[in-house]
């Protein structure tokens, strides 16, 4: 029996091998042979191009703004000169020379020193950033590490809502309510001063720092918290020695962005800073910022005058500062994202 069966078995295996290596011939009949319809292909391509244009538009606008700003602003360097943006040498009656750092663009002897404007900007932006760092990082730590999930869901949108309040409203609030309150409390030299403006700016910057700090801290793997608590650390030790150092880059990026916003913010400082171009370190004095100068004077300047180009030059400075601050923050955030992928 066995012996007679063997040849048949061999034959079977042979035919099987033959079937295995047979090459498909009728490709058109295969369900895989369906081709893309021309209409679909055109539609896909169209959608692709549509979104590519959308993406490019933002970039094009930035480049155009950049070009326009520089085209107008560079003119100022020709007409006024770099040194005149720093000081003005006034000839006195006795022929001696007095060096002035003043912003008087409409005087018969126009003075274009940017020093008081830069001082004014820093004197509002730096205190605002310090105040906002204190409260913003605190709020971020609270949201990320301390608040119960319910409280976080409730509080985070409220804090972020603050960033959406029109700045003219905040400026008005500081001008009317804030200034009066602190006028009684601190008795400042000027009712509207750098401190009032800085407080107003803080309303905008605290939400930025709080929200970004919370994001940065929450992206830290929970394992690290567990490791710390497992070693007998308290909540405060865990936050201060593990969580904040691990989230340091994210937190500092949020502070840099907040600082950039403080420098670029216009309406609040225009309304609340008093707008007197003082060179001072006294935070209770009126100051004039670069942004407020452009906003207040651009409407009345005669086009093509030195003053007109000088305002554009201020615009270049502002654009450059905020551009680089944003760039630094963006680089830090990107590095952080890469680092957190363990």
């Amino acid at each position, binding site marked *: 029996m066995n012996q007679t069966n063997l040849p048949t078995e061999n034959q079977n295996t042979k035919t099987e091998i033959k079937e295995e290596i047979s090459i498909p011939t009728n490709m058109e009949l295969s369900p895989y042979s369906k081709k893309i319809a021309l209409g679909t292909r055109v539609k896909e391509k169209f959608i692709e191009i549509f979104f590519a244009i959308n993406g490019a538009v933002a970039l094009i606008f930035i480049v155009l703004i950049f070009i326009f700003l520089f085209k107008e602003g560079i003119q100022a360097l020709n007409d006024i000169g770099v040194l005149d943006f720093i000081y003005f040498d006034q000839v006195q009656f006795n022929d001696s020379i007095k060096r002035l750092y003043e912003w008087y663009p409409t005087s018969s002897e126009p003075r274009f020193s940017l020093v008081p404007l830069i001082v004014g900007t820093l004197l509002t932006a730096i205190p605002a950033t310090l105040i906002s760092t204190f409260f913003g990082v605190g709020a971020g730590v609270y949201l990320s590490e301390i608040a119960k999930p319910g409280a976080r869901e409730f509080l985070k949108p409220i804090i972020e809502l603050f960033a959406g309040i029109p700045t003219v409203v905040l400026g008005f609030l500081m001008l009317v309510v804030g200034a009066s309150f602190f006028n009684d409390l601190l008795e400042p030299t000027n009712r509207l001063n750098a401190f009032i403006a800085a407080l107003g700016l803080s309303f905008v910057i605290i939400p930025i720092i709080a929200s970004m700090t919370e994001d940065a801290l929450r992206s830290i793997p929970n394992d690290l918290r567990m490791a710390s608590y497992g070693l*007998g650390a308290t909540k405060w030790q865990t936050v201060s020695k593990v969580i904040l150092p691990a989230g340091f880059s994210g937190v500092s990026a949020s502070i840099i962005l907040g600082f950039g916003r403080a420098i670029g913010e216009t309406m609040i400082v225009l309304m609340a800073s008093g707008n007197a171009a003082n060179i001072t370190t006294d935070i209770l004095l009126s100051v004039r910022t670069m942004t407020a100068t452009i906003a207040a004077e651009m409407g009345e300047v005669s086009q093509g005058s030195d003053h007109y180009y000088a305002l554009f030059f201020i615009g270049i400075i502002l654009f450059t500062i905020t551009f680089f601050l944003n760039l630094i923050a963006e680089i830090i955030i990107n590095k952080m994202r890469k680092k957190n992928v363990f």
Partner: protein
Amino acid sequence: MKKIKISTEDLSLYYSEKQALKNISMNITEKQVTAFIGPSGCGKSTYLRVLNRMNDLIPNVRITGKVFVDGVDIYDKNLDVVNLRKRIGMVFQKANLFPKTIYENLIYGPSINGIRDKNILNEIVEKTLNQAAIWDEVKDRLHESALSLSGGQQQRLCIARALAVKPDVILMDEPASALDPLSTAKIEELIHELKEDYTIVIVTHNMQQAARVSDKTAFFYLGELIEFDNTTKIFTNPKVKQTEDYITGRFG
């Protein structure tokens, strides 16, 4: 005659409404290795975290029953949880070193306990690295990032870090599950040496590992403690049918 280090009485744990541990009573002996085995979701890791109150960190967890360590009720309202966690160290499934240097990782525990003296800290670092059998591998790079080490080295560094706060119990939650066989062997060897001085509780998915390293084995299933006995007894002659089915690979 060895003492009972940890004991639980009628311990149940609930995540919101869901009961994750059901009436577990068990005694863990000091200076031995006790292994918890069972399929995923059986409650063995949850039970481990009951022993140093790590579950406190998860919202909506409710516990009934009693847990005693050296006869002290660790769920007493006034108990200092931070002190408890210093006494009962923990090693996690994934090496969770801080993004700092090797040295900074090791002194984290002692320094939050207020040890500032550099000489004492250096002593602790060398001693614990020796205990964790990793001194020779890292002694020349103590001030490099701990995250530059291999996975197995990181896990042994985690053990060293846990030892640095001088605990007397070490809880290990699947400490070798993410490691290659060679690193796993090193960890197991280490566990074997550490049990001279420490009470070790280890959760593992790997039954051979439980058989190799532990003196006693507990089998958990669906939140219940099915069987708890000497490891040799569990693996050669289990009393309960479910235990036998699990260790012979019929389910799990």
